[in-house]
C-alpha cells in the first residue's frame, strides 16, 4: 500500500527506522500492512523489577492526525501498575496531548510533541515499568498496594507475568 497522508508516511518511516535498529527488549510493528494506525508491541519487563522475565503485549493506536496528536497505548491483557488504568491504558506524560496541563502537574515539554516517536514512547513505558510514579497514579488500588505492601504487589505482578506468558 502506498502511504498517502502525512501520518501514514511518518508511521512508515518510523517503522522502517525501528526495524533497522531495534532497542533491546522491544518489538513493535503494525498489525497489518493495510492499517498502519494500529501497532502491536511486545515489551520485555525490565530487570530487577517485579516485571522481570515477563513479556507484555501492548497495542498502540495512532490517531489520523498523528504526529500532531499522541497515540494511545494499551496493555492487553491489562497490567498491574500504578500508572496503568485497570483497562490497560497507559497514563504517562509523554502520551498526553500537548499544551498546558490544567492541573499544573506536568510541564509542557514533558507532554506529547511531534518530535517524540514510537521508539521513545516504548522506552518511556519500559522505564515507567521500572520506576512507577505514584504521585499521578492511574490505578488507585495498584498505587496503594505498591506503596503499602510491596511484596503483595510484586507477587501479583509476577502472577500476571506468568499468565501473560501462558505459563499459569
Amino acid at each position, binding site marked *: 500500500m502506498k502511504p498517502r497522508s502525512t501520518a501514514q*508516511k*511518518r508511521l512508515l518511516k*518510523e517503522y522502517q527506522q525501528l526495524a533497522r535498529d531495534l532497542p533491546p527488549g522491544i518489538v513493535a510493528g503494525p498489525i497489518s500492512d493495510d492499517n498502519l494506525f494500529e501497532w502491536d508491541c511486545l515489551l520485555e519487563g525490565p530487570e530487577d523489577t517485579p516485571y522481570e522475565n515477563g513479556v507484555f503485549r501492548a497495542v498502540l493506536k495512532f490517531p489520523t492526525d498523528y504526529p500532531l*496528536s499522541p497515540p494511545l497505548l494499551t496493555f492487553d491483557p491489562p497490567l498491574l501498575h500504578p500508572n496503568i488504568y485497570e483497562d490497560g491504558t497507559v497514563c504517562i506524560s509523554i502520551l498526553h496531548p500537548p499544551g498546558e496541563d490544567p492541573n499544573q502537574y506536568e510541564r509542557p515539554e514533558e507532554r506529547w*510533541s*511531534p518530535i517524540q516517536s514510537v521508539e521513545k514512547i516504548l522506552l518511556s513505558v519500559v522505564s515507567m515499568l521500572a520506576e512507577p510514579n505514584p504521585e499521578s497514579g492511574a490505578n488507585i488500588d495498584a498505587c496503594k498496594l505498591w506503596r503499602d505492601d510491596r511484596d503483595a504487589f510484586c507477587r501479583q505482578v509476577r502472577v500476571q507475568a506468568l499468565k501473560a506468558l501462558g505459563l499459569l
Partner: protein
Amino acid sequence: MTDENTCRICRGESTPSQPLLHPCKCRGSIKYIHQDCLMEWLSHQSKKDKKCDICDTPYRFRVIYDANMPSQMPLGEVVHRIVALVGKTCFRTLSFIFFALCVAQIPLFWKFMGRLFTYAVDGKMPVPKFTARHVLLYGAYTTHARSGADLSTENATLYDKVETFFYDTYLPGLFQVLVFVLVLFVVFIEHEWVVREEGYTKLLLRQIGREPRTKLADLLGLMRENHLPRQAGAGDDTNTNVENPQAANNNAAAAAAAANPAPNPRPDESSLNRAIEDLRQFQANHRANDSPLHRALERNEYGDLINAAFYDRGNIETMNRDPYETENTLNLTQEAPEQLQTIALNNLPEDDEADQDYVHEEGSESESEIDSDTDGEELNLHDEPGRRPHQQDHRHNNDVHPIEDVPQPRNFRLPDAINPDVLEDETAEELERRQNLVEDEMMAAEAANENIFELLGFRFNLITPIQLMILADFIIVLFLFSAYLVPHTIGNMFFYIYVFAAKSFRAIFTSLVPLIPLLEYMRDKFEALGSALGAKFPFLALVSNLANAVIFKPLFDAVLNATSTSRTSPPSLTERCVYLGIGWVFICNAVNGYMKNLVSREKPVVGTSRKIYKVLFRIVATAKVFAIFGIEIVLFPIYCGFLLDICLAPLFIDQFIVQNGAQKDYYLLLTTSKELGFNNYFRVLLYWLAGTCYMFFIALFVSMIRSKILRPGVLYFIKSPEDPNARLIHDAVVKPMKLQILRILLSARVYLTLILGGIGAVTWSLRFLVNSPTAAEQGALFPIQFPGVIGVLALKAILYSIIHDREVIVGPCQRFWKRSFAVLSHKLRLSHFILDTPVPQERGYVVYRNLFYRILELGVPDYTKPMSYSEAQATFKADPTVIACFVPDGTYIRAPSSDDNSRSFLKLMFLPVTKSDHPIAVEGSNKLKAENDDEDQDWWDADITYEDSYAVVYSPPNLRLRCFYLICGVCLFAALLAVCVFIAAVILGAIIDLTVFKAIKMLPIPIEEHDFRFANMRSVLFGLRILLSIVAYYERPPTPNNNGPGGIAAIVAPLRAPPAELLAVWSYLGSAFVLFTSNAAIFMILHVFFIPQLEQYFFGLRFWLLATKDAPAQINPTWIGLALQVAALPGTFFPFVFSFRMIPNVINQQENVFKYRPFYIQNECLIYLVLLMALEGFARYKRVEIPETTFIYTRVFVTVAIVAVRSYAMLQVLLTKITEQIKKEKYVRGTAVENIPGEDEH
C-alpha cells in the same frame, strides 16, 4: 539513524518544493522542519506565542509580498483610505462624545431630580425671589457666585454662572452618584454573601418553617395512575428516568434499577409498582438517616438553598456517571412513537419551570434580581443530563398535567443573573452585545486601542448610549422616589400632624408630649452652660461651644423649625435629615410589623405570604449586614478619625479662639482651622483614612502583644483576626441587631478612652505645659509649624524612607514592650496571670516595719517563711532586726488559656481553685450555676466547636483593679515612649534641618525664611530618620563577615537597594508618570501660556486670563483665541492622549522607556529651555536688556516648531501605517518561516 536530514514532524526529506528549514536553536535530529509541517503543528497547537516547544525560540516569520508590488502605493488608494479613516474617526469621536455626554448627564439628572422632589415635598420654592430655573441650576441655598456677584441679577458673568453651577450642582451630584454606585455595588456583593450564608437560610426557615414537600414517590404514584394505563409500554423508560433522582439518593434498590436499564423493553406494570414501593420504603427508612446529600436535596426543594446545591453538585455528578442516559431516551423517541408521551412527561416539569422563570425574568426586574441565583442554578441544570434528577426534585407542586403534543426539549440559554441596580448597563441586550464584542475582538485583534473602549462596554454607535442613559435615569428616579421622596413625605406628615395637634389641643398636648418646651429648655440651658463656663474654663467652654455649634444647635433648631407653625427659611440640611430619619423609621417599622404579621400565623407559612416574606427577609438581612458593616468599616473609622483630629489639634493649631469681629470663632479641630480649609468630602475621607490607620495600628499592637508577650488566653475577650472560627457574615446575619449595636457601642467607648485618654490627654496636657492654647505667642515646641513647598517635597522623601525602613523598628519596640509588661506585671503581682511566668515572690505582699521602710522598700523579706499579717506584726515586735515580712494572699484561678473559647465555657472561668485545680467553695462565687438560665439567649446558632482549655494561674486580690492599673500603666509607657521619641526627633532634626537650610541658601534657589527655634514638621521627620538610622545601626543583622560595627556603611545599610520587584514597579510607575506629566506639561504650557501670549501680542486679546493677586483666573472667550487653541490641538492634545496609550506599553517594556520615550518627549520642553538659557546667557554676556518681543518670537518659534514636528511625525506614522495596511491587504502572498542565522553550516 539516517545520514540524511529529515523533518522532525513528518520525517520526510528535503525536496525542492519543500525545503527543510531550521527556524529554532534545536540541533541534531530535530533541527530541521518543513514549512508546512510547522504551520500545521502551530495551528494544531493553537497557542498565541509561536515558538519552539523545545528550545523556546520564537519563530520568526517573513511576510512574502507579491513580486510585482509597486514600491510606492497608488496615491488614490492612500487618499481613499485617509478619507475613510478620517470619516471613521469623526464618527467614533462623535459617538464617543455622545456617549460621554450621556454619562455626564447622570449626575445632573440626579441633582435635578433630587431638587424637583425636594420642591415637590416642600410644595413651594424655598426662597420666593428665586426662579425655578435658578433653583434647579444652582440649588436653593446659593445666591451669590464665588466672585460675589448676585446670581439672580444681571451682574453675574457667564463665568460666574458656570462656576457656580459646576461647584454647587455638578460636582456634588457627581460625588453623590459615585457614592450611590459604590453603595449599590457593596450592597450587591453583600447580598451575594448573605444568601450564600448558611445562617441566613437557617434563620429564614426558623421564621417561616419548612415547606411541606412533595414526595417523589407520591409524584410517581400520581403519574402512574394518570398515564400508565394508557402508556404501559413506556413504563420502563419512565421508571428509569424518574427513578434516577433517587439513585442519587444512595438508594441501593433504586440505584440498581436505574443503573441497569432493564433489558426487557416492555416490562409489565408491576415492576414499576414495585419500584415505587421500594422508593417509598426507602424514603421512610432513610428519613432518619438523613445523609447530607439527602438533606441537601430536601432543602433544595425550597429553591432558596443555593449553597446546598453547590455543595452537593459534585456528589450528584459522581453518582450519575451515565451521561448517555438521556441520550438513550431521546433515541428511543425516534424508534417508538408511542413512548413519546412519557418523554414529554419527563420533559414537562423542567420546561414548565423554565417557562415560568423566563416570564419571571422578563416580568419584573426587581424580582429577577432576587431570584437570580435560583434561576441561574436551575438554568444551568438544563443542559446537562447528569443533573436531571436534581432538577426534578425542584418541582414545587405535583399538579403535572399531561399534554398530548410533544414539546421538544428546549435548551434555553437565558442571560445569567442580572442585577439591574448594580451594573446599570447590564441589560440583556448588553450581554448579548458583549458576546458579540468578544467575537469582534477575536476577529479584529489589531485594533488594540479600540479594545480599551470595547472592554469598557462601549461600542461605537448612537443607540446604546441612549439606552444606557434612559436605564440609568429610570433607576435614579425610582431610587430617589422610594428612598427620598416617600420617607420625606412621611416625615413631613408626621410633623404636620404634630403641629396640627399641638395647635388644636395645645393645653392637653403639651402636657402630654412636651417636646417643644423641653427642646427649647435644653437649648437655652446648653447655651447658658457654654457662656457660664467660658468665664472660668476657656477649654471647657471651647468644647461645649463646639459641641453646641456642631451637634446640638442644628438638631434643636431643626426640630423647632419643623414644629413651628410659621416658618420662613427653607428647611436646613439637618432638618431634612430629621424628616428623612422619621420617614425611614416609619417605613422600617411598617416592614417589620408586616413581616411579624406574616409569620405570626401557623408555621410553615405557605403560598404568597411565604414568597413575600422571603423577599422581604432577603432585603432586611442584606440591609442589616450592610448597616453593620457600614458602621464598622466606614462610620467607626470616621469616628476615630474625628477623635484623632481633636487630639492632634493642640500640636498644630496656634490659636483656638479667634476674635472674629463681634463673635468668637472656635477651633478645636485641625481640619476646621482656617489655613487648611478642607473640603467636606476630603475631610471625611481624611478622617476615615486616619481612623482606619489608627485601628489597624491598634490591631497590630494587640496581635503583637498577644502573640509575643502575653499568656495565651489573656485577651480572650478580643477576637483574634486569625481566629479560624470567625464567621463575619454569619454573625452579622444571625446575631440580633441590638446585640451587635451594643457591641459596636462598647468598642466605640473603648476607642474613645484609648484615643482621648491615650493620645488626647498627652497632647493637650503637653500643650498646656508648653504654652497655653489661649496664649497668642508661639511656644518652642508647639504648635508645630508646617513646612513650605520645598519642605513638603523633602517631607515626602523622608516619609518614604521611614516607611521603607519600618522593619527595623519592630525589634526594639517588641523589646520595649516586653520589658514594660514585665516591670508592670511584676509590680502589680500579675506576672503569672499576664505573662505566664510564675514568680513565687508575687504570691503575697511584703509588710514593712514602718512607713519609712515601706516607701524606700528597704529590706528583703525572708520568702521561705511566709506568715500572716498578725504574725508579721508579732515578729516585728519580737525581733527588731526584721524589717520586712512576706505575707501570702490571693488564690489560684482557672483562666482561659486559648483565645477562641466558646462563650458557654468562658462563663465557667475565673473560678478560684487550689494550685492542683480543685475548686474552692468560696462564699458567693456560685458562678458555675449562675449563668445557666440565660444560656445562649444572645444568638441561637452557636454550633461551632471550640477548643476549650484553661490554665490554673495565680491571681492576687483585686484582680480587676490590678488589670485596670496595668492598662493605665501600658498607656503611660506608650505616652512616655512617644514623647521621648518626639522630643529626641525635634532636637536631632533641628540640627540637620538647619544645616540643610543653610546649604540650600547658598544656592540661588528661592526658599522661604524660617525660624529654627520652633519645631517644625520637617525637622521632626529628619530627626525620626536619624533615630531610625541609629536604631538600624544597633539592630543590623549579624553577618558572618561583619561582626563588629561597620562604621558609616552599617548606618547606611538600611538604605540599601529595595527588593527588585519593588524597584521594577516603582520604575514602571515612575516612567508612566514621567510620560504623563511631561505631556501634560507641554499641553498646559502651550495652551495656557504660549498661545494666549501670542494672541495678546498679535491681536491684543487673551483667551485665558491667569490668576493675579487681584482677580481669579478667568476665561475670556474670543473666536480668534478659540481658533488658535483648536489649531494647536493636533500638536498637543493627541500626543497627550497618546501618552495614556503609551503607559501600558511602558509597563510592558521597561527598558524601552529609559531608552528614548520620556527623553524624546521632554526634548521638546528642553528646546524651549535651551533657547531661553541661550538668550539669557547672551544677554548676560553682552550686558544688554533683551526686549520682550525677542522672548515672544522665541515662543512663537518654539510653539510652531513643536506643533510642526509633532504634526509631521503623526502624519508620517499614519502614512506608514496605511501603506502597511494596503500592502497587507493587496499584495501578501503568504508567510515564510525564517531560518535562524548563523546555523546554515552543517
